[in-house]
């Protein structure tokens, strides 16, 4: 019960913090105009993306950016399908195609970085599509010499399934929160689709970690550790493919979760838990709160799940349904106010209220989407229980690793 109260307090605190900061820094929502157009090398690491590599490259070729200042490098990471042939068909349009044995996204990026000649280097997922002015709207941030990397506004490309529509809401929430985090210099990740880095970052801090399943997150934390800025350009829109089904989403989110835990607690070259210190200012505090919040949520979740599973073993859920069928709901004198006998319910309502305000004002202002409320209920009802289950699966993998030794990999198609 105390843990639940603490969790709800943290949630209320974070939401109020975000809303206050958003109100305080609203003028920063406008991305700075570029004063010049530095040369940009866009690296597209690709593994078995024969269906999407061509439209990805097309979107990059369509960028509204001086042609002589743009370099596109596709790195085929040992694909077993026709990704390489599809990429090579663009060589006559100036696209550089490199080929290597399969070694993971980090190694593909590093190969591209070595070949790149731009002042700025961007990563681009081979299943994502940049809008024409996305690059132009990012480069203005690099006039600030503190800025090491900038990420764009990611949106879900043509969501069809319910899972994709829910992810659409989630991405908008994530981007909006990331924009507000940038006001704190607190961004913890530079995601794959069109995140742009200063080339000197790689010279100074090194390339991507090749054995890291969330190499983009690790790079962002490395940048934070070096006290450089990460920004978010909301007018730079990139569409990305989201997993259409539960299985793909599970694979993706377990990888993200495990990567986060690895970077935080198990990384051999240095654990990023050390960033939770006042010397890292707002970022240190927010990172600590996120860690405490996730740790508390998982404790409550694991405790409740264990109790539920043990209860199900002795009382199979089938019988719950039978007893429910026997209920006479017309006779029950259900009165809403009895729910409020518990203050926890009140706080839940408060959090929902603040999240709704966040959705309406902040997400609508930043993400510029107005029909989010349509799927908001689905997002609340489906998303959070799903993410809880994904965290349970994450923990099962962690327990497996504790017993059989650490192994991190991409868990299948996402």
């Amino acid at each position: 019960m105390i843990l639940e109260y603490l969790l709800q307090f943290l949630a209320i605190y974070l939401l109020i913090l975000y809303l206050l900061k958003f109100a305080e820094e609203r003028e920063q929502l406008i991305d700075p105009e570029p004063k010049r157009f530095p040369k940009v090398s866009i690296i597209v690491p690709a593994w078995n993306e024969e269906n999407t590599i061509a439209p990805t490259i097309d979107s990059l070729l369509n960028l509204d950016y001086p042609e002589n200042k743009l370099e596109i490098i596709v790195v085929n990471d040992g694909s077993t399908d026709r990704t390489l042939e599809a990429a090579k068909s663009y060589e006559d349009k100036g696209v550089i195609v490199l080929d290597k044995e399969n070694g993971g996204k980090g190694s593909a990026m590093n190969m591209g970085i070595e070949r790149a000649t731009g002042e700025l280097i961007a990563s681009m997922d081979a299943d994502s599509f940049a809008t024409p002015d996305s690059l132009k709207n990012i480069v203005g941030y690099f006039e600030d010499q503190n800025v090491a990397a900038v990420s764009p506004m990611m949106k879900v490309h043509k969501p069809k399934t319910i899972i994709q529509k829910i992810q659409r809401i989630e991405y908008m929430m994530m981007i909006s929160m990331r924009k507000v985090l940038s006001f704190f210099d607190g961004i913890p990740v530079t995601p794959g689709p069109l995140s742009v880095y200063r080339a000197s970052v790689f010279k100074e801090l090194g390339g991507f970690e090749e054995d890291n399943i969330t190499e983009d997150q690790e790079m962002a934390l490395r940048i934070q550790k070096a006290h450089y800025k990460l920004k978010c350009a909301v007018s730079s829109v990139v569409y990305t493919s989201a997993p259409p089904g539960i299985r793909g989403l599970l694979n993706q989110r377990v990888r993200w979760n495990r990567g986060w835990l690895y970077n935080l607690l198990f990384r051999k070259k240095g654990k990023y838990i050390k960033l939770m210190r006042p010397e890292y200012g707002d970022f240190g505090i927010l990172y600590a709160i996120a860690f405490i919040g996730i740790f508390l949520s998982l404790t409550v979740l694991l405790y409740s799940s264990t109790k539920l599973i043990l209860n199900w073993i002795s009382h199979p859920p089938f019988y719950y349904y039978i007893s429910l069928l026997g209920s006479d709901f017309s006779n029950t004198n259900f009165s809403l106010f009895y729910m409020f006998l518990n203050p926890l319910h009140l706080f839940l309502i408060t959090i929902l209220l603040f999240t709704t305000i966040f959705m309406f004002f902040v997400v609508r202002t930043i993400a510029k989407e107005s029909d989010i409320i349509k799927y908001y209920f689905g997002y609340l009802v489906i998303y959070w229980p799903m993410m809880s289950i994904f965290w349970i699966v994450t923990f099962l993998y962690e327990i497996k690793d504790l017993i059989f030794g650490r192994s991190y990999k991409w868990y299948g198609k996402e």
Partner: protein
Amino acid sequence: MEKVKRKISRTHVIALIISILLFFVGILMGLQFSYYGMSEVERGFEELKNDEYIMEILILMDESDELSCGFYEKQMEKFNSDTYEFAKMLDRAENAKGKYDPEVMKLKSSYSLMELRDSLLLKQIEKKCNISKIIVYYFYSNGEDYDPRRDQGKVLDMVKRESPFIMIYSFDINARSPVTDLMRKKYNITSVPAMIINDKKYEGFRNYDELTKIIEAEI
């Protein structure tokens, strides 16, 4: 590249103050609602008690049988129905406040006493009016040993809907009520769920078909 000068915004302090205020307001409101919720439950119980006292007085004062048995029968059926519904309200309050909440336990104990008085009143009316009702004393547990597969209450609900002449009086053996303890001793209840149907004991769960047969045999 230049390194950023890290700082801690004062927004944290403002957000913390607002959160703490909200939190305490929430706790106070929750306590107030809790108090209000229990007051409503207690008020419902007082109303039931008053109805019961009125019935008792009517029966005691009606020496020349001026009031018809039809009237008594209807009143008892209504009273039993109201009492049964109140039991569900009490269960919900128990779920919200916890099984061992002192206020809930006290109310449950008083409720058990009221149920017993009600059943005794009914027996008086049966004698007076030569009518026959099926009286069911239902013993159950709302504690750690609660088994939804053996929720006799749900089956009783279904049967009562079809047979409104059944009068059900339920006793939670975890409620620590002297009345419930007395009833358990009187009928030698050793396990729950258990039912005393017209003074015949049935221990163990009875499904809908089994219970319907038992009721039909009593008609």
